């Protein structure tokens, strides 16, 4: 699960300043324009490589950190069906992390370097996972709406230009459709259940509404555009477009259950565009910079996993074998 990549002003400037071999660049861009994919080992502009690594790596981190809020309820799922589904679902997130780290590795950054950057706070992950899963209903809302939002983003990105990332995303999207189904199933059971079940579900929707609007990143007017990233098919849709697509698909599915969103201004206007109250972008910035309800815990748990597993990985290592960048 992942939100969206965005570029800081400084990065946008630098990107436009980098000089590349004009002939190679032209060939590279022709390839992308004609709909061909870029594969590992191809010549590519430095900025392309860099931005892709950054994006895929953040996506991978989001998967393995995203496993934690949902993991909160793994030992408490209320029956066999939910218990099996939740373990399988969280397992998939870890599997997606594995696939994405593998895709990023083909660009020349090792999994270990990426994990170190995550654990040392040098690399980000999706903001939404810094919020807590307070009740069982949060699992339903995460499974349905957070995964729903992630699918919007991932389906779009799977049409990008980098072969290994597209392949990973295709597999991921296929598995995410299970997440969405089981999340919807969970939401519907709670919504059509007892008053208490409906109440915890409504409470969870109320709490996840803003983080869901934040999920796709700041509004287009406030974020830096990179023509290059669009042209190179690294970024394929704007934050606002994706957010709108998400609202269009999922708001009706919550409303049809007689549930509400905590925003009197949420409505679709005459142009088919969803309008909503300002979701407090200052909070978004605060959380992304480390001051969210769960940032500390998420990193502490990942650090624990890294540290507690170290002896296992070290014992498995064969010092005579040399790591080589994977093929695809």
């Amino acid at each position, binding site marked *: 699960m992942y939100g969206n990549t965005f570029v800081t002003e400084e990065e946008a400037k630098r990107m436009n300043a980098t000089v590349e071999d004009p002939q190679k660049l032209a060939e590279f861009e022709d390839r992308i324009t004609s709909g061909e994919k870029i594969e590992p080992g191809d010549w590519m502009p430095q900025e392309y490589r860099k931005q892709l690594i950054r994006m895929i790596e953040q996506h991978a981190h989001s998967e*393995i950190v995203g*496993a*934690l809020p949902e*993991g909160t*309820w*793994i*030992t*408490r*799922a*209320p*029956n*066999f069906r*939910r*218990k*099996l589904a939740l*373990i*399988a679902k*969280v*397992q998939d*997130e*870890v*599997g997606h*992390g*594995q696939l994405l*780290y593998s895709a990023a590795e083909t660009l020349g950054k090792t*999994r270990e370097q990426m994990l170190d950057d995550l654990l040392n706070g040098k690399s980000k992950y999706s903001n939404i996972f810094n919020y807590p899963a307070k009740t*069982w209903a949060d699992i339903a809302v995460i499974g349905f709406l957070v995964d729903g939002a992630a699918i919007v983003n991932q389906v779009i990105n799977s049409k990008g230009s980098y072969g290994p990332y597209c392949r990973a995303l295709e597999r991921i999207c296929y598995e995410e459709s299970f997440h969405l189904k089981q999340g919807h199933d969970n939401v519907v*059971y709670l919504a059509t*259940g*007892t008053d*208490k*079940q409906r109440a915890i579900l409504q409470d969870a929707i109320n709490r996840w509404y803003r983080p869901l609007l934040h999920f796709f990143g700041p509004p287009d007017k406030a974020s830096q555009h990179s023509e290059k990233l669009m042209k190179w098919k690294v970024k394929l849709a704007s934050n606002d477009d994706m957010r709108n697509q998400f609202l269009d698909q999922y708001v009706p599915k919550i409303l049809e259950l007689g549930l509400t969103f905590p925003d009197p201004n949420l409505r679709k206007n005459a142009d088919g565009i969803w309008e909503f109250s300002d979701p407090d972008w200052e909070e978004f910035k605060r959380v992304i910079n480390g001051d969210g309800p769960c940032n500390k815990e998420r990193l502490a*748990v990942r650090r*624990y*996993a890294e540290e*507690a*597993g*170290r*002896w*296992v*990985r*070290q*014992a*498995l*290592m064969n010092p005579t074998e040399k790591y080589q960048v994977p093929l695809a």
Partner: protein
Amino acid sequence: MNINATKDLLFKMADDALIIGHRNSEWTGIGPMLEEDLAFSSMAQDKIGHALALYKILNEVLGEADPDKLGFMREEKDMKCCHFVEYPIGEYDFSIIRQFLFDHAELIRYEMLAESGFQPLAQLAKKVKGEIKYHVMHADTFVKQLAAGSEEAHARLQNALNNCWHLALGIFEKSELESDLIKDGTFAGEEELQARWLAKVTPLLEAANLKIPATNNDKIALGGRRGYHSEYLKPLLDEMCEVVRTDPAAEW
């Protein structure tokens, strides 16, 4: 066929599978490396699936309550799992040695049950044998490679084996109705299972240069099969049933 003896066998197998699956699912998301996280998680799901299949036989063939009630609504004293599966996951050394010792017993138990005169169990045994074979392959490969991998890893595995041994022997605690199971041809019994298990794990542990601790009969963790459990089961059940017990009548 002594129905109560058969029920007792199914309950202890199902409870073992549910509790160890539950425990091992705690590794999901925090495993020692991503690939192993996935593998361990799948095996936890398999175990919970085995528990479900066994409770289904109890429900559909032997008239007990539905599987969700059997798995999530029984009291501690009614549970028949062994102490070994109840222990917290600890560090990875404990979890992998537990898997090794427990799954070798499971594999042999299901092999024996493939010959059971109680058809539903014989059919289930044939169905799940491939899954458990993989669990054993996983455990064997890890134990072998870790034990030879570093001094620290070897010492950790040895320590875990020392801690696990008498717990593992508790798997084979006989039930009161054991002789009926053997007589009826439902199951050839814990004694035979234990002998076959010992013959299987001993050379594997020796090959990994791990020393089996001397067995002290007084230290074997008994009682689970009669409803007397370790200090860890009650909190586990409270946690596992926290959501469903907020409203057991609701559909979840």
